[in-house]
């Protein structure tokens, strides 16, 4: 029971981390390697708003979400828009933006900036306390992650499947030329997808980060997890991401219980290599699979 409940929590955490990256890639074919740093930046911004500016919790969360959406928009508008279609340059540029953000957060002593180093950066949970669920002790934050995560994922599914903006996102993803002929502005849609993706990264951050400390190094780890989930599930595939998140989440939880926490990364590598060997396109990746991947 322990494994199942915490496995679900783990899986939803992975799904939340990966959706933002997956949305951006699925829509505009931009591998947003700044994903992990936007995640961490959102966490630190929320912390800063609460502790330095003494803002209300809800208000500071909303504000940092808006700012991360804005950052995604800026990254697209000023940097990535010039590099559309050159995959190598897109990766390098977005990754360097991510490095600038993450290493900038660790920078000390410039303009009186202390740098976010040390173990004392923690967001408080939305609601304190624990609850007994099916015989397992679970704190409220994890419960919120399960419920909020599922709600968010289904909202996103409704958004991409049943609203006009969402449909235009999917149209661009499927056939850019045809969508442009029907009057969908590709750059605008890509910009929207970048900002939604970044806001999703921020949302994942404020939901997940109360479980532990915030450190800039985590940015790389988050990026790795997002990439791992997307590669296993198939980039640009919604169902694949959720499926892969559950596989990886449970694999890591089970290995933690059986062998100890240090082994979870090893299991992660194993899963990825196995999936690549068996099915290089990812479990459910169908989009343009043949031309692009193998």
């Amino acid at each position: 029971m322990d494994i199942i409940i915490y496995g679900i929590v783990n899986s939803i955490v992975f799904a939340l981390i990966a959706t933002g990256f997956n949305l951006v890639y699925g829509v505009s074919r931009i591998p947003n390697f700044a994903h992990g740093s936007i995640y961490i930046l959102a966490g630190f911004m929320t912390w800063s708003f609460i502790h330095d500016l003494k803002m209300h919790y809800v208000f500071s969360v909303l504000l940092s979400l808006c700012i991360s959406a804005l950052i995604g928009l800026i990254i697209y508008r000023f940097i990535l828009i010039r590099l559309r279609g050159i995959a190598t340059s897109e990766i390098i540029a977005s990754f360097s933006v991510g490095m600038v953000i993450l290493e900038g957060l660790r920078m000390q002593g410039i303009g009186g900036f202390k740098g976010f180093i040390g173990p004392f950066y923690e967001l408080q949970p939305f609601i304190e306390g624990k609850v007994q669920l099916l015989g397992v002790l679970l704190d409220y934050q994890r419960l919120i992650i399960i419920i909020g995560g599922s709600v968010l994922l289904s909202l996103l599914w409704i958004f991409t499947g049943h609203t006009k903006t969402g449909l235009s996102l999917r149209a661009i993803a499927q056939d850019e030329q045809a969508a442009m002929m029907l009057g969908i502005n590709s750059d605008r849609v890509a910009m929207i997808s970048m900002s939604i993706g970044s806001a999703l990264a921020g949302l994942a951050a404020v939901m997940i980060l109360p479980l532990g400390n915030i450190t800039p190094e985590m940015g790389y780890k988050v990026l790795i997890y997002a990439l791992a989930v997307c590669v296993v599930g198939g980039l640009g595939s919604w169902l694949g991401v959720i499926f892969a998140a559950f596989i990886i989440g449970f694999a890591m939880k089970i290995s933690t219980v059986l062998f100890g926490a240090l082994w979870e990364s090893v299991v992660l590598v194993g899963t990825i290599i196995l999936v690549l060997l068996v099915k290089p396109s990812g479990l459910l990746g169908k989009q343009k699979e043949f031309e692009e991947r193998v």
Partner: protein
Amino acid sequence: MSTDRRKKRLDRKLKAQSDGLYALSSWTAMGYLMFPRALLIFGLLLLPLFLDMYWQRVLCSAGVYALLALSFDFLAEYVGLVCLGGALFIGVGGYISGTLNMYLGWPPLFCIATATVTGAIISTLILLPSLRLRGIYFAIISFMFPMFAVYIIIALNVLGGTEGVSGLETLQNIWVEQYLILGIVLVSLFAIRRLVNEDTGLILRAIKDNDQAVKASGISITAYKIKALLIASLIGCFAGAYMSHLYGWLGISLFSMDFSILPIAAAVMGGMGSLTGPALGAFILTPLSETLRGFGQLRVVLYSLILIAFIIYKPEGIMNYIGRKYHQFEHWEKF
């Protein structure tokens, strides 16, 4: 404004004369061809004589980054495999060489040679499953491997675990160290330049541009990708093995992001695809980041910013720009 004026570029007369075998018939043409090459070779070989002890060490690590940048450029521009995990080569080479030296007591030069070959084979085997992928998929996977290597070493707590192993034997003296790395940089630079113009290089470039066509010609693309990867990882693993003996130390920071990012920055800055450019870029960027070492994380921020600026405003890089100026003259022309 730009509608009635355009830039016209023409090859210089000397460039046309020195194309092909006829270059041998004139000293001027020979000199025109030899000058840049001689400048590079003698410039690099004479450089250590003008530096003090500290900068000589910096030169050594610049050589390491130059090798990595070279292998990145070769893989990315001539094979189409964007390898974001250069640290994997460094780590594998460094760990093998260090372990041989530490536990078997082999002399450093012998360790480096062994580690270069076995390390290259091992890192090729590690990357083998992901060779079927292309473009960003390969980039993603290769980016993850160095980090996983770190996790595995920490999890198993072998080879020194988190602290690493110190007290490895170093090479005889600083001169041997410098000329070893500079020699290898020059040799691998010219070897790869030769290779990409041979038939093999033609096939590799064809794989980058259109691998379906190569397959249709009855050539196994996987076999060629493996060969190319082996060459690139030979270079990378030598750099790693050399690195561990340069500092007499090995640890998980051999897998750190620095070894993946700085070479890429050097390649972009120097000019992707020119092979010489990335090496030169490394010899510019490493001293720069060394002078900024006092500022801590600022240097990483700075070279990321340089990277972004070059990729947006000067995507051709320094070396391609210089090469254009050397071979061509240009003027504005009305039309």
